[in-house]
């Protein structure tokens, strides 16, 4: 590849492609990511306000869209995973789902083409929020001591508990928020890198010295288009997985027995 990459395209894409320049100069306080997150928040607020400003018995198109999203999360996730007690979490889960879906799908929208979630800070903040919520509802329902006993001490013979309790602690209180954040981040990061590899790789192949190599760039771009569709699927799936796992953790915190 080094022989081919004689052009000035920065070919093997790397981590530095994710550090976008500041928009207004002077520190990195306002970058494209900042704008994208605010844009996502604004779009969601306007969308749901407009959809429910004047609700009709026979829903209008925008009302139908908003109701489908809410209904999907409410019955498909909150009620299925947590049960009847999960309905009061439906608003939060819907907000989380639509925010994640919108910010993930930014990764393939033309001219935006990068997801804010490909920086660990944004998934980490959302994962910390989920972590606080499931611990908070668990402590609220059972009290601190009983919640700890429920989540740390599985029903097992006493002599195995010295091994199980640290494992349970590690998996519940350390691994959970970490994996929530890293799963979303890694998927969005890898997706962006893959699209960069095939799009820039096409240009590198086109700029190759060998005439027979040049047409291969078409294959590269066809792959880039196909992988864009895959990214759309991944964006939806990762938003779904994040919300499902959050509700699964809430369900575990609310459960009476281990």
């Amino acid at each position, binding site marked *: 590849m080094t022989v081919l990459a004689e052009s000035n395209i920065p070919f*093997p894409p790397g981590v530095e492609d994710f550090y976008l320049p500041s928009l207004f100069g002077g520190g990195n306080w306002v970058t494209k990511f900042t704008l994208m997150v605010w844009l996502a928040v604004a779009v969601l607020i306007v969308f749901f306000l407009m959809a429910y400003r004047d609700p009709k018995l026979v829903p209008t198109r925008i009302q139908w869209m908003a109701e489908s999203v809410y209904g999907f999360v409410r019955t498909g996730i909150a009620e299925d995973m947590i049960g009847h007690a999960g309905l009061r979490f439906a608003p939060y889960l819907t907000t989380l789902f639509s925010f994640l879906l919108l910010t993930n799908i930014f990764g393939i929208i033309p001219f935006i083409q990068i997801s804010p979630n490909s920086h660990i800070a944004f998934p980490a903040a959302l994962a910390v929020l989920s972590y606080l919520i499931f611990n908070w509802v668990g402590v609220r329902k059972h009290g601190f001591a009983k919640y700890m006993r429920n989540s740390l001490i599985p029903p097992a013979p006493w002599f195995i508990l010295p091994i199980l309790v640290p494992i349970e602690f590690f998996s519940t209180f350390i691994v*959970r928020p970490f*994996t929530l954040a*890293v*799963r979303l981040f*890694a998927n969005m990061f890898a997706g962006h890198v893959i699209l960069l590899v095939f799009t820039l790789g096409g240009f590198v192949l086109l700029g190759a010295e060998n005439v027979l190599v040049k047409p291969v760039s078409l294959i590269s771009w066809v792959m880039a288009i196909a992988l864009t569709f895959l990214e759309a699927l991944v964006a939806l799936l990762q938003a779904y*997985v994040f919300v499902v796992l959050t509700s699964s953790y809430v369900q575990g915190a609310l459960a009476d027995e281990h």
Partner: protein
Amino acid sequence: MLDLAAVNGSLSAIGYGLAAIGPAIGIGLVFSAYIQSTARQPESSRMTLPYVWVGFALIEALALLGIAFGFVFK
């Protein structure tokens, strides 16, 4: 000595590829078990779904630890 072929870049990419084999098989097993059990007993699909997601999360944690340690053990 003349280098006929050379590889440069990070070895942790190869290491992560190897490390991802285990979780890949594990996730395949989780969902294949879920699909089989749902095919045999369709009404149990709601009941087993939470376990599917918990198992999936635990297994994928291994792959994600692999990513993290790839950066740690440079």
